[in-house]
């Protein structure tokens, strides 16, 4: 009798598990049947299959894209995911298979393997880590599936393992910061004054930190009246940014400019400055230059505590779609592609904010 109860329990659990796994599936399973057809096509027409496929394709022949995302750790990341999801919609002729790796590279490797088996047309990866991609990308290459990397760069022994990379030019962001600052100081009539700068760096070793620090340092050399008093990491967090700024304020009493390598650290720095009884922003003593340009940064600029935020554009979807369209048409694409990024000073913040997607 007891055994019988157990079996019932087992059945119940089984049914739960499978209803979970199966529930979302009914809504879309469009790829399937045409897989066989295109296989037949390709056997006869060899290399030119991509184009013939497209030409003879009925409207329901979607391009299947597998996208492995890092996770959902920040607003920036969520905007990035949304950009992909809205670009690769069925209305635009795509089917997106999305996988959230929960910040784990091993999950991404599994996801890519599954994409290969599902015969996707393109694999897009926003890598968790820069390293460790050789083996699985080799498998994708052997299966003939182009791989597009977005956001972070990867470090592989053979560059042919990925077709293209789309992301931010952090070095250029550093240049933009210098350019804006020079123009700003000029407009305030302080171009000849000695300017003291401190930098709140991002997590040391991250590509954003390296690019922004180096870009700024490189262009800053042209301005002999600028002095970099100190650079310290605030690890991209608000609390650490505040802490480091507090120690800067104790060590130096004549800071003119704060460079915060992301918006969160800038918010921390603003808190520290205000707590020390100083003012910052367009009308304050200290100029705040920040990076990323997330929505909250626009709020800070509107409130008058931040001078400028240099954009780090997460909207990679359209750019990736452009690459896929070109590849599908048999064209070659540039290996490294930077997304367009703007500079948003406080004066225009109020009018630009409503147009921002993130």
């Amino acid at each position: 009798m007891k055994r019988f109860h157990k079996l019932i329990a087992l059945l119940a659990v089984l049914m739960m598990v499978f209803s979970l796994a199966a529930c979302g599936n009914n809504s879309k399973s469009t790829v399937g049947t045409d897989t066989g057809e295109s296989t037949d096509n390709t056997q006869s027409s060899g290399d030119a299959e991509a184009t013939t496929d497209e030409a003879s394709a009925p409207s329901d022949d979607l391009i299947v894209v597998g996208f492995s995302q890092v996770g959902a750790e920040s607003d920036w990341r969520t905007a990035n995911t949304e950009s992909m999801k809205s670009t690769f919609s069925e209305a635009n002729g795509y089917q997106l298979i999305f996988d959230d790796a929960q910040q784990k590279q091993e999950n991404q490797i599994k996801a890519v393997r599954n994409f290969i088996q599902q015969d996707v047309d393109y694999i897009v990866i926003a890598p968790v880590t820069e390293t460790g991609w050789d083996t699985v990308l080799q498998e994708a290459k052997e299966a003939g599936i182009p791989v597009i990397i977005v956001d972070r760069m990867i470090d592989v022994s053979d560059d042919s393992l990925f077709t293209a990379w789309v992301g931010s030019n952090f070095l250029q962001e550093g240049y933009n910061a210098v350019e804006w600052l020079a123009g700003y100081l000029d407009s305030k009539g302080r171009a000849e004054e000695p300017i003291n700068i401190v930098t709140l760096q991002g997590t040391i070793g991250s590509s954003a930190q390296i690019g922004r620090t180096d870009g700024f340092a490189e262009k800053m050399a042209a301005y002999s009246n600028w002095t970099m008093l100190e650079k310290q990491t605030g690890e991209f967090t608000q609390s650490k940014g505040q802490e480091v700024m507090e120690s800067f304020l104790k060590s130096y009493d004549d800071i003119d400019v704060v460079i915060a390598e992301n918006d969160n650290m800038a918010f921390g720095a603003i808190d520290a400055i205000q707590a020390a009884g100083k003012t910052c922003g367009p009308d304050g003593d200290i100029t705040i230059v920040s990076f990323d340009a997330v929505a909250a940064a626009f709020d800070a600029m509107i409130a008058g505590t931040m001078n400028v935020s240099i954009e780090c554009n997460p909207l990679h979807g359209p750019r990736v779609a452009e690459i896929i369209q070109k590849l599908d048409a048999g064209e070659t694409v540039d290996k490294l592609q930077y997304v367009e990024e703007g500079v948003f000073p406080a004066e225009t913040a109020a009018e630009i904010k409503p147009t921002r997607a993130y």
Partner: protein
Amino acid sequence: MNFRIKKLDSKQFLLLITIGLFLVMYLIGIMVFQDKNFGKLQVFLNLFISNAGLIVAATGMTMVIITGGIDISVGSVIAMTCMLLAWMMEIKGMNAILALIIVLVVGLVYGLVQGWLIAYLKIQPFIVTLAGLFFARGMTAVISTDMISIKNELFLTWANAKIYFPFGGAVNRKGVMVYPYLYPSVLLALITLVLFFVILKYTKFGRSVYAVGGNEQSALMMGVNIRRIKLKVYAVNGVLGTFAGFLFSLNTCAGFVEQAKGFEMEAIASSVIGGALLSGGVGNVFGSLFGVLIKGTIETFITFQGTLSSWWTKITIAVLLAFFIILQSVLTSRKVKHS
């Protein structure tokens, strides 16, 4: 007479449920994702390729759980192994074979220290291995907080050496003929599994392991040196942990502090789903293999489905674990009643 058959049944019963569950899940996967190639041989092989390290870690974990212990340091040990391998080969320019031997020795020492604390000082395994967890993760960060990519030629040859099947190839949508393949890491994992199945089942050491976990008092009376058995189990598990780390690094080719977080929990879940009893004395390494495969199947389900949040893996595993633990407690309470 009646009672003896029943007792034997309850152990087999857990294992049979696990195997049955896996088969049913897989068949349902094939049916539901028929149009997405779920039934392809390579999808099945990928379960092993992606989880080779976990198979070895779960084998060690099962052995530890059979003695009534637990080892939650495995994930950190794996991260430390990957980092050590990457650091020795890339920064120190060491030979890959030498680096492998060194990490296995490190694993042995790690296991011996943990085992000694547990067996001879009678400290709770959970506490000892919790300290081990923090220590190994900390040491990983001490070696390097950067990601180190492994580019050692010999190592990459190992990592990329595919064993192709001579049959079952299929042309994919891109018009490329792809044969099913495995990596050597899978074979190494399966050999380890079979080896430990034989050791646990047919050697004096193996029987002592079950005796210690089943009832320490009676094991003592049977003349089993409990402390030595425990020390050996943790030492072997230490080596298996670093070996799992080696297999893991073959898959990821990198050393990084954040790697393999929560891996120990996956190993424990696999063992438990595979029929190992946390109270000790019962368990089977083949069961843990199926535990690993079930986890892999759920993950495959979720990527094939394509729109579901991958957190459903964790939720489903949680449901399964709850189910198996309840089942175990029902079975053990019955065992106690009878004896």
